[in-house]
């Protein structure tokens, strides 16, 4: 909570530039400033609270280290509570209290109780403060050490001198409240940002490798490509690979956010971290460890956290002036109260100004919102490359879609099968067609084979397969020549086609057996996505290179969407650029290859991925699993994120201004300053936690 975000660690130099952010906190996953020079295997923490929380809740240190830290904090708390209790009694005055306050032994007792407390609780602040001080970084730890140190030394002097003010309860109380407050904040914050950890934890560390003598349990790093591993029902896949034996329902929720399991057969690819629900599988290793899709997802989400955050420009602008201003105000407070009342009052009130104005809440206000949102998005199978993207998504006004492969499945599917002779059998013709197309890799062939398989038709026996590129394929069945392809190739007259569809003809010895109609069908999720976007106030448009007729067919099928066809990639970019010049913030949804220029020109580029192979360069947003309805969900999440970030920021500044005014006027005791500061940070954390409670995509209550 102190050196969290660049905005709050102030370099005491004239440049108000953000220090380079390069690492994430080992406990709460927020960025750590100035971590780039640390060794990669050293765990870094953004604040003392996270360091404490990590050690206590079993991070790297063993039980004894955690116990030692607990003892230190606990004993510190014990002494602090006694100091405060005794001081309360003295404050309320009355005969008894005044008599007690006059007694030397009471003062010595207070000092005796306070000293171990200050040492035990103050040590972590001193060590962190020294580190910050060396880098000339004026963070909260330095301020606390200075303020508490001054309060303690003035009191100690009073005890030795036998007269003068005592601020021992203040010194102990600030340390105790800050320690406990930071711990609480760190613990809560880690819950907000933990989605990533859940992803990483679903990765198994060991696998059953099939060897010549049987099976052996090996760690993942000992596996090599093309090794075979056995995955039993109920186990998570340890690697990315191809199924060689067995079938199973696989839950890919960790990767795609899709909770419905998918059926996987031999030849299908599967991803590490997904869950084998019910089948025994033998999987050939393609990638393991850090190369797997899941590891890449985790890395992308982590990298996103290092980038800029929503409202960053605003935060930068204000913080650049805010912190020097606060330092001036604190100095002025110190001078004023020292001159008019006493040095003690000066130190206390200046300390209170610094404690209240500590920009912790400002620093975490927007990163925390974005990190919570990115975790939530990742759990729904959406990768967002930078925190700032949420701001642009929330402010978007229009959505443009590519057609082929985005609004449509990108692969032809058999939409009709028409027999030539009414008395012929479906199954006989289908089995012949499937037999012929089985040997072909053409998309049309794949569509026909799948169509036959879905109807339970087994391919017939054919011989002498021959493919004629661009026209069709032929073979012999029972000595007769079987042809499948264009009407001319099949040697039959063309039939009247449905608009937008492609026909493929099957003939046996020149006699027409039947005809397939194939179409690139819209994704099931396309129509609801367009409808939901419209409800969110975002009109949709198709920008496609395909012919205008095909585009208007798709547009008519979806409804509520405008269509422009026949565009070259350059024209798509020009369209987006024209929109951008008018001040339109446009989201472009397309595939990462053909649409790359358009994606980069749009305010936000969105790509869809199959979900099992993250091969492509990523756009700003990648929706894994290809469900388009995730887009409106993401818009809603982004708008909520921006709302939370704005509210956090407003609260942080409002609280600071109010608190500083009270502190300057000497109306706020530093103890309450410390408490208020913790409360303000907790308010920001709890407010951001609302984002973690938003329903995941696909689990929302549907209105229709």
């Amino acid at each position: 909570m102190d050196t969290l975000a660049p905005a709050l660690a102030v370099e005491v130099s004239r440049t108000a530039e953000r220090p380079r952010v390069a690492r994430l906190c080992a406990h709460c996953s927020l960025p750590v400033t100035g971590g780039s020079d640390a060794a990669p295997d050293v765990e870094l923490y953004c604040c003392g609270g996270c360091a404490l929380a990590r050690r206590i809740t079993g991070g790297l240190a063993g039980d004894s280290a955690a116990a030692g830290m607990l003892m230190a904090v606990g004993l510190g708390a014990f002494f602090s509570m006694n100091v405060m209790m005794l001081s309360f009694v003295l404050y309320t005055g009355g005969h008894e209290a005044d008599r007690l306050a006059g007694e030397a032994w009471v003062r010595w007792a207070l000092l005796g109780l306070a000293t171990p407390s200050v040492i035990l609780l103050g040590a972590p602040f001193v060590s962190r403060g020294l580190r910050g001080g060396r880098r000339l970084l004026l963070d909260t730890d330095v301020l606390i050490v200075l303020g508490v140190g001054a309060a303690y030394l003035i009191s100690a002097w009073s005890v030795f001198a036998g007269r003068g003010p005592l601020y021992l309860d203040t010194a102990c109380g600030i340390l105790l409240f800050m320690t406990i407050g930071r711990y609480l904040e760190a613990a809560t914050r880690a819950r907000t940002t933990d989605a990533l950890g859940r992803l990483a934890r679903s990765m198994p560390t060991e696998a059953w490798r099939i060897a010549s003598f049987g099976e052996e349990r090996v760690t993942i790093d000992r596996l090599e490509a093309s090794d075979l591993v056995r995955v039993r029902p109920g186990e998570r896949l340890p690697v990315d690979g191809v199924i060689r034996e067995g079938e199973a329902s696989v839950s890919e929720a960790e990767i795609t956010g899709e909770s419905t399991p998918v059926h996987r057969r031999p030849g299908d690819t599967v991803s590490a971290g997904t869950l084998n629900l019910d089948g025994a599988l033998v999987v050939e290793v393609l990638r393991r460890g850090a190369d797997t899709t899941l590891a890449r997802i985790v890395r992308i989400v982590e990298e996103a956290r290092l980038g800029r955050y929503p409202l960053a420009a605003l935060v930068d602008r204000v913080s650049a002036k805010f912190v020097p201003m606060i330092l001036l105000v604190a100095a002025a407070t110190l001078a004023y109260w020292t001159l008019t009342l006493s040095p003690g009052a000066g130190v206390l009130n200046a300390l209170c100004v610094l404690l209240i104005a500590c920009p912790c809440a400002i620093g975490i206000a927007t990163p925390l919102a974005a990190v919570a949102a990115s975790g939530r998005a990742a759990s729904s199978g959406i990768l967002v490359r930078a925190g700032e993207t949420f701001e642009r998504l929330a402010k978007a006004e229009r959505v443009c879609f590519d057609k082929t492969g985005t609004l449509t499945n990108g692969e032809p599917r058999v939409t009709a099968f028409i027999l030539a002779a009414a008395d012929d059998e479906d199954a006989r013709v289908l089995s012949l067609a499937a037999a012929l197309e089985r040997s072909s890799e053409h998309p049309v062939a794949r569509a026909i084979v799948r169509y036959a398989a879905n109807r339970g038709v087994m391919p017939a026996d054919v011989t002498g397969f021959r493919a004629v590129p661009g026209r069709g394929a032929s073979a012999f069945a029972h000595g007769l020549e079987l042809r499948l392809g264009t009407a001319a190739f099949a040697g039959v007259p063309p039939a009247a086609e449905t608009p937008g569809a492609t026909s493929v003809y099957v003939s046996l010895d020149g006699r027409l057996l039947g005809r397939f109609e194939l179409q690139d069908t819209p994704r099931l999720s396309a129509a609801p996505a367009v409808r939901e976007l419209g409800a969110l106030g975002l009109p949709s448009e198709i920008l496609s290179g395909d012919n205008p007729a095909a585009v208007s067919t798709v547009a008519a099928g979806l409804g509520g969407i405008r269509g422009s066809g026949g565009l070259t990639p350059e024209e798509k970019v020009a369209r987006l650029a024209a929109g951008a010049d008018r001040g339109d913030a446009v989201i472009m949804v397309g595939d990462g290859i053909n649409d790359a220029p358009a994606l980069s020109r749009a305010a936000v580029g969105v790509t869809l991925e199959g979900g099992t192979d993250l091969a492509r360069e990523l756009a700003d947003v990648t929706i894994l699993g290809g469900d388009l309805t995730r887009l409106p969900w993401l818009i809603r999440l982004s708008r909520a994120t921006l709302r939370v970030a704005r509210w956090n920021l407003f609260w942080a500044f409002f609280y600071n201004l109010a608190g500083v005014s009270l502190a300057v006027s000497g109306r706020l005791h530093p103890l309450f300053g410390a408490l208020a500061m913790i409360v303000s940070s907790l308010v920001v954390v709890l407010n951001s936690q609302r984002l973690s409670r938003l329903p995941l995509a696909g689990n929302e209550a549907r209105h229709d």
Partner: protein
Amino acid sequence: MTELWVAAALTFAASAHCLGMCGGLMVTVAARGKRPGALRDFLLLQLGKGTTYAFLGALAGLFGATVTASATFVWSTRALTVLAALALAGVGVTLLGLRSGTVSAWGGSLAPLWARLFGPLLQARPTGFPLVIGLAMGFFPCPLVYAGLAAAAVTSSPGLGALTLAGVALGSIPALALASAATNFAARSERSAWRNLVTRAAGALLIVMAAVTLSRAMPGGHDHHAGAPPAASAPAMDHSAHQHH
């Protein structure tokens, strides 16, 4: 010192309740057969718990003093007394068994946090660890502590508030000592009839206390409390607020 003994006596009367809530923990921390140092650990635990209680009591007293010192102190003192009486009565009703659920539900939701925080201490058992455990235990939700805090607020004095809660800590010691001495005791007494009976008697006693407290808030009622005549505490608080400036 009256506050201390009254609170101790009342808590002792109600301390069958402590067996259920804290008895198990006593056994975990302090009683490991006839282990040497078991007595020391038990006392450290009580010291830690007592410190937290007294600290909370001082805070409650400070709160009471602040309220009484405010401009409209007659009414605010009266409101404070009524609230405290209601709190006492509420705890009494809970002990009578007429109202249940809330307190134990709270304790249940704290359990995982407790385990996460103090697991390392209970495993490593460094010297003096029961003190820290006791300190944390003092913050456990407990109806007897709530009753004590209500009474402490009415004293309108941090010192008397601390003494009241120290009394609560003191009063619970015999029962807890019994629990840690006889490991099976707590488990057996859990269901025993006498435990219910004693707890209910304490509940009834608290309700009587509440009635007495309430009568003081009534117009014409007189504050026969020794601790904090409002006239004296008003300037006292003034002193505290400006101590540092």
